[in-house]
C-alpha cells in the first residue's frame, strides 16, 4: 500500500465514524425511533404574538418577528410585510421601518425601495414558537464573552 492510499482509507474511516457519532448526538429530533421508521411529529404550536421585540444576539442579526405572520402572503405579486414595514406605511402601522440596509443592492448602492435581495423577508426573519428546543443552544454573545475571566484575561487587554 502506498502511503497515499493508506491516508485515503484512514480519512474515509474517520468520515464514516464521525457520521455515526453525529447521528447519535443529534438524535434528539427523532428521539429513539430507528432510522427506518417514521416518528410522530409533535403537534404544531401557534406562532407567538406578543408584539414585544426580542433581544438580538449580535448587531447584524435579523431580528426575529415578535408577531404572528400566519396567512401573510409574500410572493412576486404581493408583499404583506411591506404593507406595514415600508417607509410610507409606518405612520399608520406604527411598525419599525425596514432599516436602510434593506435598500442597498449588492454593490452598496441605495435604491428607491426595498432591494430585490431583501424582498423575501422570511428568508431572514422568522416568527417564534413557544417550544423546548431539542438541541440546546450554547451561543454566547459578545458582552458575556467579554466578562469571562479566562487564564489569559490579563493578556487580552
Amino acid at each position: 500500500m502506498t502511503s497515499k492510499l493508506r491516508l485515503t482509507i484512514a480519512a474515509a474511516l474517520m468520515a464514516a465514524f464521525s457520521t455515526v457519532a453525529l447521528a447519535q448526538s443529534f438524535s434528539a429530533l427523532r428521539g429513539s425511533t430507528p432510522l427506518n421508521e417514521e416518528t410522530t411529529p409533535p403537534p404544531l404550536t401557534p406562532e407567538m404574538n406578543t408584539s414585544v421585540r426580542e433581544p438580538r444576539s449580535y448587531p447584524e442579526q435579523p431580528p426575529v418577528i415578535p408577531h404572528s405572520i400566519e396567512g401573510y402572503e409574500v410572493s412576486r405579486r404581493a408583499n404583506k410585510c411591506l404593507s406595514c414595514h415600508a417607509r410610507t406605511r409606518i405612520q399608520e402601522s406604527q411598525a419599525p421601518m425596514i432599516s436602510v440596509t434593506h435598500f442597498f443592492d449588492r454593490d452598496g448602492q441605495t435604491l428607491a425601495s426595498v432591494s430585490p435581495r431583501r424582498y423575501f423577508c422570511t428568508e431572514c426573519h422568522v416568527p417564534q414558537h413557544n417550544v423546548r428546543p431539542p438541541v440546546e443552544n450554547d451561543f454566547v454573545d459578545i458582552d458575556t464573552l467579554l466578562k469571562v475571566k479566562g487564564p489569559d484575561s490579563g493578556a487580552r487587554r
Partner: protein
Amino acid sequence: MTTDDARRPSFWRRFLGFAREIWGVMRRPSAIFSLGVLVLSGFVAGIIFWGGFNTALELTNTEAFCVSCHEMRDNVFQELKTTVHYTNRSGVRARCPDCHVPHNWTDKIARKMQASKEVWGKIFGTINTREKFLDHRLILAEHEWARMKANDSLECRNCHSAESMDITRQSPRAAEAHQRFLFTGEKTCIDCHKGIAHHLPDMSNVPGWQ
C-alpha cells in the same frame, strides 16, 4: 253573489278587449268561486311562485353551485382551503356566498343581476385558464374591494361585529389598529384585510402595498 255578464262590451277589438276583460275579471266578484277559495288559491299560488323563486336563489347561493365552475373551483376555492375561514379552532366556516352575496333581499337580487355577467364570462372564457385568471385577477378583486368598501364591509360584519369585539382579547397589533381606525369609522375591514380568503392579485399599483 251576482253576475255582470250582460254588461260585457263584446264588440271591442280583441287585443283591446283582452286587457279590459282582465281588468273586468279582477274587479268583478266571482260567479263560481267563493271569496274564501279565491283568497286561499291566491295565497297558495303566491307561495309556489315566491318559493320557487326563493329556491332558485337559494340553490345558486350555495358553495356547491359556485365551485361547479372550474374557474371558481381551481383558483379561489383551492386558495380558500388554506385560510382561517376554512379551518380554525372554533370550527365555524365561511362559504363563498357568506362573503360574496349579501344576506339581504334587495341587495341579493341586485347582486344576482350583476352575476349574469359571469355567465357571459363563461361563454367568452375570460378566465378559463389559470394564466388568464391571474392576468384578470386584479380587475375582479378591484370589483370586490369597491363593493365591500361601498357597503362598509357588510358581509364581514354579518359574522364579525365591531360592537362585539373585545379588544382586550385581541393581539396588540389588532387592538391598536381597530381602536385607531375601525372604531373611529375612518376605515372599514376591507381597507386593511385584503387577501384574507384568497391569494392576492398583483398589488404593485394598489395604494398601501408598496
